[in-house]
């Protein structure tokens, strides 16, 4: 009888290993997701709000800080889950040989892959939630809003974690991780309606930016300011991309471990 593709314990065991490493330096690890949104909110809030004032969004005008707060959450999700999937997984795969060591235990490739992916997702969730808590404390997002946004953040974290893993499986040298960062992550970070409404972009650029997954994630996290009419299509888009990138990532990494 063939054994199942993955087991709960196998996945949890791998996730648990990463969580234990994180736990050892949790203070250092928690600092970027806490400090970054504070710095951004302070800088943009105090620096730009007097110049920008309110911004048009979804047929209404909203205070600039309320506009960028959900985007900060999305960026936290993007960076933490992508970087964990890309850099940390690459290191575990190629330098520390953690994946290879785990596969000498009672774990399948799927256990290790999903465990790593789940950990990248967890990092995204930690960042998104911490940023959301700051937004709640700042009065920019209600506690209920944050609670109801968690599934959206989860979707974003799994997607960007899978993209990170795909990167880790595709590059041969650690410096090459910079290529998708410069070509994809940074443009997405700047153009997807993070700091300004996409409607201000030239139509072609605005349309391109709208297709990028961060745009959908930000739109969905701004649901308290009004959901786009095709929000379900954006959920479907993020979900589809997540599945595609997870499959691509697994296909890239598997041959490196199972010859």
């Amino acid at each position: 009888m063939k054994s199942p593709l993955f087991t709960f314990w196998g996945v949890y065991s791998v996730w648990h290993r990463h969580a234990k490493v994180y736990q050892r330096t949790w203070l250092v690890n928690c600092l970027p997701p806490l400090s970054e949104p504070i710095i951004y909110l302070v800088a943009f809030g105090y620096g730009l709000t007097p110049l920008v004032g309110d911004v048009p969004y979804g047929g209404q005008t909203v205070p600039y800080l309320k506009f960028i707060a959900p985007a900060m959450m999305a960026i936290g999700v993007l960076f933490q889950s992508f970087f964990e999937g890309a850099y940390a997984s690459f290191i575990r795969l190629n330098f520390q040989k953690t994946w290879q060591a785990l596969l000498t235990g009672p774990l399948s490739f799927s256990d290790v892959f999903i465990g790593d992916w789940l950990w990248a997702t967890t990092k995204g969730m930690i960042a998104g939630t911490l940023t959301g808590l700051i937004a709640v404390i700042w009065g920019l997002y209600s506690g209920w809003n944050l609670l109801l946004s968690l599934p959206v953040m989860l979707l974003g974290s799994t997607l960007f974690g899978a993209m990170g893993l795909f990167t880790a499986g595709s590059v041969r040298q650690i410096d090459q991780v910079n290529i998708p960062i410069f070509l994809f992550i940074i443009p997405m970070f700047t153009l997807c309606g993070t700091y300004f409404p996409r409607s201000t972009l030239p139509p072609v650029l605005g349309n391109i930016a709208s297709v990028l997954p961060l745009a959908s994630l930000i739109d969905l996290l701004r649901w308290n300011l009004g959901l786009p009419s095709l929000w379900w299509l954006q959920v479907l888009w993020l979900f589809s991309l997540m599945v595609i990138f997870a499959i691509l990532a697994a296909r890239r990494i598997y041959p490196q471990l199972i010859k």
Partner: protein
Amino acid sequence: MIAAIEDSGNVLLVLESFFLDSSFLDSVNPVQSRNGNLLLATTMLTSNTLVTEKPALVAYDLWKLYGTHPVVQGVNFTLNPGEILGLLGPNGAGKTTTVGMLYGAVKPSRGFVKLGSTQVQSNGRLARRRMGIVTQEDNLDPDFSVMENLIHFAHHYRILGRAARQRASELLDKVDLQDYARHSIDELSGGMKRRLVLARALINSPQVVFLDEPTTGLDPDARQEFWKLVSSLKQQGCSVLLTTHYMDEAQRLCDRLILLLQGQVIDQGTPAELIKRTIGDEVVEISGVNAAQLQALAEQADTWCRSFGDGYLVALPPDRPSLWEQLVTLQPHRLTRRLANLEDVFLHLTGKVLQ
């Protein structure tokens, strides 16, 4: 004659048995059953009695091709309970690839591996619950201390809390690393790291342990220490498969050896059997002689002679005691008579020096 043996209601074995000669002892004869399952077991035939000992592990017709290039070609063997089996061969012989297929890190192009009744290729996770694996590379977790490496690996086997700490502590005692329990991996020497990898492989009290070139790069003292640990595994009833290109290691540790060259088994047997069968008891190392004269003497004595270092190696057949005196008459620069060893076997079979 066909004998069928039942195990837990499943037919495990069909053997063409009673007219097998002794060279077939301890071999595997897989046969397709009526329901399509492959049937396996080892056989031991004694006078009129068929005794069956279930092997700890069976590798059947293992092939690995990368593209069209064969790396392993039709390797068959069994590993018996409490046995240390050595895979001996030069670099590139296919040892690591074979070990990879045994625990599921390499997918065979053909053939399969069974650990007990569990097929590794379709049920690797379950099989590895009963395996301990020491790979060639040190893949200890640098994020954890020595003790934590064991505790966290135990977690994968659901050995948790106090049980994990206790097991880790026992193993650190066993590999003599208790004093380093709180140290980081970077603080360990090469030998210590290998011992820790072995301890990690033993965390689940495995039935079968794979050691892939475990002492490569270690100094002589560290190798001796490691050998003691491997010997202790056998005493505990553990089956060990060891790959090595060190002849002394193979000769000292292994009950049985499989010689691999270019992915193929070129011979197998106990170290003593291999030496006796291939070389005989003694060899002579000789240098500074006329090659043609030496060759003529060897041919006359019906023995073999190979180029070896700056001289030659000549097997001394026990039925030709005069050969030694004849070699002395050649007035060589150097002439050494010694007991034959595995290196001589390998040189004879392949024309290559292993170390």
